[in-house]
C-alpha cells in the first residue's frame, strides 16, 4: 500500500481494479532519475494495445453529477478516464494539471458548470481563464495543448459527458502516449 505523507495523495489507488500495469514501472539507470511512475492503471485489452490515461477533474455540483447520470443511464464511455471530484472547477490549480502530466497521464479534462450556473457563482469563470492561459503557455513550452481539455457539463447532461470522454479519448489516442517527462534510456 502507498504510504501517506510520502506519496502525493491526490489519487487514491483503487485496489479492486484487477489489471496489469499498462506501463512498466522502470527505475532509470542514470543517477538520480526515476522514470515516471504511473499510479493509475488501465484494463488492458487482449492485444495489449496502448490506452491513453485521462485524468478528469469534475466539479461536484454539475459535472460529477452529470458523470453519475451517465453511469445510471447506462451510457457507455471509455474506461480511460479516472475521476477526481473537486468542489468547483475553479478549485483546479494549473499545478494539478501539470502534476498529472508529470505523473504520466496522457491528458487532463477539467469539467465544470456552464457559465452562469456555477454553484459558487464565479468559480468556473476563473477556471476558464486559468485553463486558457495554461493551455497557451504549455503549448509554448512544447506540450501539445490537446492534452489539456475542458468542458461544461451540467448535472443533467449524462449523454454529453459520455460524448466528451469518448471524443477526448479518441484525440489522445491520436496524439500518442505522454513521454514528456520520461528520461532518455
Amino acid at each position, binding site marked *: 500500500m502507498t504510504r501517506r505523507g510520502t506519496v502525493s495523495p491526490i489519487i487514491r489507488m483503487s485496489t479492486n481494479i484487477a489489471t496489469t500495469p499498462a506501463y512498466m514501472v522502470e527505475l532509470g539507470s542514470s543517477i538520480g532519475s526515476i522514470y*515516471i511512475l504511473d499510479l493509475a492503471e488501465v484494463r488492458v485489452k487482449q492485444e495489449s494495445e496502448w490506452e491513453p490515461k485521462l485524468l478528469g477533474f469534475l466539479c461536484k455540483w454539475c459535472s460529477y453529477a452529470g458523470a453519475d447520470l451517465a453511469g445510471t443511464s447506462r451510457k457507455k464511455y471509455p474506461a480511460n478516464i479516472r475521476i477526481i471530484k473537486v468542489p468547483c472547477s475553479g478549485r483546479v490549480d494549473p499545478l494539478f494539471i501539470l502534476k498529472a502530466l508529470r505523473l504520466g497521464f496522457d491528458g487532463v479534462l477539467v469539467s465544470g458548470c456552464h457559465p452562469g450556473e456555477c454553484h459558487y457563482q464565479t468559480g468556473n469563470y476563473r477556471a476558464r481563464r*486559468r485553463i486558457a492561459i495554461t493551455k497557451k503557455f504549455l503549448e509554448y513550452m512544447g506540450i501539445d495543448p490537446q492534452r489539456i481539455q475542458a468542458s461544461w457539463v451540467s448535472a443533467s447532461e449524462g449523454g454529453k459527458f459520455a460524448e466528451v470522454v469518448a471524443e477526448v479519448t479518441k484525440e489522445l489516442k491520436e496524439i500518442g502516449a505522454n513521454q514528456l517527462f520520461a528520461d532518455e534510456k
Partner: protein
Amino acid sequence: MKNREMEQRLRHEAKTWLEEGKVDYVIGFEPGSLKFTTTPLITKDKDDIDRLVINPFMVNNLSVYLTEIKGRVGIVAKGCDSRSIISLIQDNQVVREDIIIMGIPCPGLIDLSKVELWLGRDRDELDDITRDGDRVVIMVDGKERNFSATEVLFDNCLSCEFPTPQEYDVLLGETSSLVADKIASRDKIKKLEGMTSEQRWEFWKGEFNRCLRCYACRSVCPSCFCKQCFVDESQPQWLLPVPRWQDNLMFQIIRNIHVAGRCTDCGECERICPVNIPLRSLTKKMYELVGDLFHYQAGMDKSAPPVLTAYEYTDAEDFIR
C-alpha cells in the same frame, strides 16, 4: 550630470522623510562592493542616506522587500519596479498609504553580461562604463570602445513600454526617452516560437538540466510572496527538492503561471540565475499571453483585480466543449 542632480534631490527627500518620521525605512540603491554594481540600501539611519546613488547599474527590483519589511517605507522605484509595487497593492500585500514612492524615470540599464560577451572580458577587467544618451562608452585596457545602447542594454529595457513610474509620490528627473529595440529584444522568444513542439521541449529540457533549484528566481521576484510556496509543501508533495530536469521544469512552469499577470518583466530572474537559464523567454512570453488573452498589463491600475481572479463574461471559450 542629470544623475548627480537626481541623487542630490533623492538624498534630500529621503533624509527629510526620516527626520520628519514620515517613514521608518528608506530603501534605495548604493554602490556595490564590485565594479559597476549597485546593491540595495535598507536603512533607518539618516546618516546612511548619503550613500544613495542613481546610476546605469541599479538593476535590483527593490519592491521585493516591501512584503517582508514591517513599517512605513520610502522606496526608490524605476518604471518596472513601480509596476511591481502596484501589482503588490492589487494583491493586498502592500498598503499604499504605508509607502512613499520616489520614482525614477529609467533610461534603461546596462547589461554587464552583454558587455562581457561583446568584449570577451569580465566585468572586473573593465576600467569604466559611461552612458551618454543612446551611446555607451567603455574603457578597457586603456582604450575606448563605443557601443550603441541597443547593443548593451538589458533585453527587457529594450522592450520597455513604461520607463516612467506609473505610481509615485516624488518624481526625480524628467520622463526619459526610450532607447527601444523591440525586435531584437524578442529574439530568443521568436526563435522558440519558430521551433516545433518537440524542439521546444528539448530546448527547455536542456536548459533545465542545469537548474540547481537555488530558488533565486523565486526569491528575487516581488510577485512570489507566498508564505508557503508550492515547492515547499510536503503534504501533498508536488515536487521533490531533487534537481531533476523534470521537476525543475515543472517548478518554473508553475511559477510562471502563478505569477501570470503580476510579472512586470523587470528581468531580475534571468539576470541572477547562476546557471544562465533564459528565464525571460518564459516570463516575457507569459506577459504577452496575458496581454493577448485578457488584454491586461501587470501593475498599471491599483484598483484592478489581479488578472487570474478576475473574469469577463466575454472571455474566450472556444477551447471548451
